[in-house]
Structures are given as C-alpha cells and as structure tokens.
C-alpha cells in the first residue's frame, strides 16, 4: 500500500529527528518573574514617610552671627600713631558714613 509506505517514511524521518533532538540542551526552567508594581507601593510609602520624619526632625542649623559684621575703624589714641582696628560683631549699633567728617569738619 503506497499510503502505508508514505507513513512509514515519514514516521521514520520524525523518529530519527526526535532521536537527534535528545542531544539538545534544554535550558533550565527559570521563568524570570517581573516584580509587580503593586509590591513596590508599600516600599514607596515607607520611604516617603521616612523622608518626611527626617525632614521634620532635622535640627535647625545654628548660624553664628559673630562674624557677620566686620568693623574696620581707623583710630588714634592721644600721643600715639593712627592704627586700624578690626572687630567682628553680630550686629552694628552705630554706623557712621565715611563721608560724615566732610559735613562736620568743612
């Protein structure tokens, strides 16, 4: 029967193919599951809370104002030479413009 002969040929062909495929290296079954986005939500909330707490309880930086104002003055003690005095202060109580002497002396 030609039909049986055909089937025999094809069966033999695929049997040989299967036999050869036994030598194939089958990769390990390791489906890499993507992390679902919803699993990241609690982590995100926790991180936000930590940031809020950290920013609230962070100590206010202490600013030292002692060096904010530098007063440079030209002084002269009686009988001495003139000298330049440099002082630092947090505030300036009295300020005299360098040109005031022009108004008073002339």
């Amino acid at each position, binding site marked *: 029967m030609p039909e049986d002969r055909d089937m025999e*040929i094809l069966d033999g062909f*695929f049997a040989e193919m*299967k036999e050869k*495929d036994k030598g194939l290296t089958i990769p390990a*079954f390791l489906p*890499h*599951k*993507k992390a679902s986005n919803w699993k990241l939500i609690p982590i995100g909330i926790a991180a936000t809370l930590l940031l809020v707490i950290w920013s609230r309880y962070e100590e206010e930086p202490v600013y030292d104002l002692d060096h904010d104002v530098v007063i440079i003055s030209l002084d002269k003690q009686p009988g001495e030479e003139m000298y330049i005095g440099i002082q630092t202060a947090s505030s300036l109580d009295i300020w005299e413009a360098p040109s005031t002497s022009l108004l008073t002396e002339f």
Partner: protein
Amino acid sequence: MKNSTLQHILKEHHSSAYIWARQCCSFDEDMAKDVLQLVYLKILEGKAVYHEKSSLKTWLFSVIKFTAAEFKRKEQVTIGLDDLIEYAQTAEEEQQGFHEAMIMLLPKRQQEVLLLVFYHSLTLEKAAVVMGISIGSVRTHYDRGKKNLRELIIKNNRHENA
C-alpha cells in the same frame, strides 16, 4: 489557577515547550529561549489565560506559536532563500540538522502541521487549535506537507545512493 500550580504544570511541559519554540523559531536556539521566557511571563502575569477549552499542552503550544510569530515580526527576522540553501547544504554536508533543513524547505503551515502531528503526537483537531485555523485547512496543509516531505526524503535518498 494558582501561580505555583501553573509553574508546576509549565515545568512538566518545559522540555516539549522548548522544542516546539525552537521549531517555531526556525530552529534558532537563542530565539527559542527568548520566546519561551516571554511565554512564561505572559502566563504568569495573567496576560495569557488558560480557559480549559483545550488540553493544557495544546493551549501552551498555541501561546508559543503566536508569541514566536509576534517576536519574529517585531525583530523582523527574515531568512533569505540564499541563507536557506546555504543552511541546507551545510547541514547536509555535516549530517547535522539535516531533518531541520528538510522541514524548512516546506511552506510554514505544512512545517507546523507535520511537526505537531508526527513529532508532538497531536491530533489534527488539536493542531488546528494550536495553529488557529480551521480543521479543513489543517487537513489540506497536512496532506500537501506529507506529499512534499516524502518527495524531499526520496530525492535526498536517491542523491545519497547515486
């Protein structure tokens, strides 16, 4: 179905799934690995759902077939006739992948139906489900495929004996 149960079933069919993926990817092993990973992801993420309308193997093979086709389309995998002839000649010379070369000389639908029926022992009805075509079309491809492959085998045997 629970993910753990699903993983267990997939693991059982892993070997035949890989071989089918390789056959759907023109026997390219690297592409088959990528396709199979995509299939597992689709299933485990619930993008491909098993509705128990067919056997699990039939459903899995169907997902693999369509994922491979999608993958090839996206990657624009094309095999030129020259590549195919070269592949067939090399395979013949080396006596490795000779069967693959013979299969690849057939039209795609004929390759699929013959592999599903003769290699994976599926019925024509199940092959129709996997291929997503009518049983009538499957029968046509099956008959033509058998005839064409038989001729190729006989030609090859004559060539070897000459």
